[in-house]
């Protein structure tokens, strides 16, 4: 899979993310079902089906996707939620 820089991942994942100080990233893993990952993005973030599907495919094909952006505390909430769902999520500064 292509090794995206964080800047590229941010650009591809969430156009608004560059204006936010932190991002939540979901990483590809060999266990989670594609249907489950897309369903989690829909139900947790409230993303429309097309956006949830696009992010899931980005995770699957590119290895990761930026799924949300905002302040650090908000990203910690999102990462905790993603990990509770069983996805591998991390947070980092959007310019890191």
């Amino acid at each position: 899979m292509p090794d995206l820089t964080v800047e590229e991942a941010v650009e591809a994942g969430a156009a608004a993310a560059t204006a936010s100080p932190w991002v939540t990233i979901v990483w590809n893993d060999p266990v989670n079902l594609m249907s489950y990952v897309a369903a989690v993005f829909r139900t947790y973030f409230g993303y429309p089906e097309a956006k949830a599907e696009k992010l899931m495919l980005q995770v699957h094909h590119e290895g990761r996707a930026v799924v949300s952006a905002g302040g650090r505390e908000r990203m910690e909430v999102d990462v905790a939620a993603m990990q509770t769902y069983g996805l591998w999520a991390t947070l980092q500064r959007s310019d890191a």
Partner: protein
Amino acid sequence: VRAFRHDDGAYRAALDPGEGPLLASLVDGLLERVAGAGPQDAVLGALLPPASRDDEEVAAEFRRLAGGDVLDAKNARLVALRDRLAAGDELVVPDDEAWATAGALTDVRLALAVALEVRTDDDATALDDRFGDDDPRAELVLVYEALGWWQETLVHVLVRRAEPGPSRPGAARG
């Protein structure tokens, strides 16, 4: 195990004879493993991976603030799944716990993937031929794959019914 369906006000999946106790003991084994796990335990690491790949301060802060809540939530839903599996010839899950059941199945599969050394998508694809028949893990492969299929049928019904799972504070429903 048989496919999940929504029937008579709940999510239901028929269990073949012996499957309930077998899967309940598998879940119980995971609960014991997590309860006794040290910080470096690989299964614990699969259930609560580091929240940063390169910044130890970020990962440590997250673990301190949120790690306990994540593991408590996982523990509670695994206990619920275990008890329901042990209950009889059908797994019956109320609507408001269907997502928790899907999450618990993910955790069981994440833990099995550690035992089966599934680290990449290629590992997962090659799993069928990975272990010889005399390797006890060959049987675990069948369980792992059956649970994946089973979870897929549950997700299918969750999506069809637009069952709400835990959501982001303030998130719009899309």
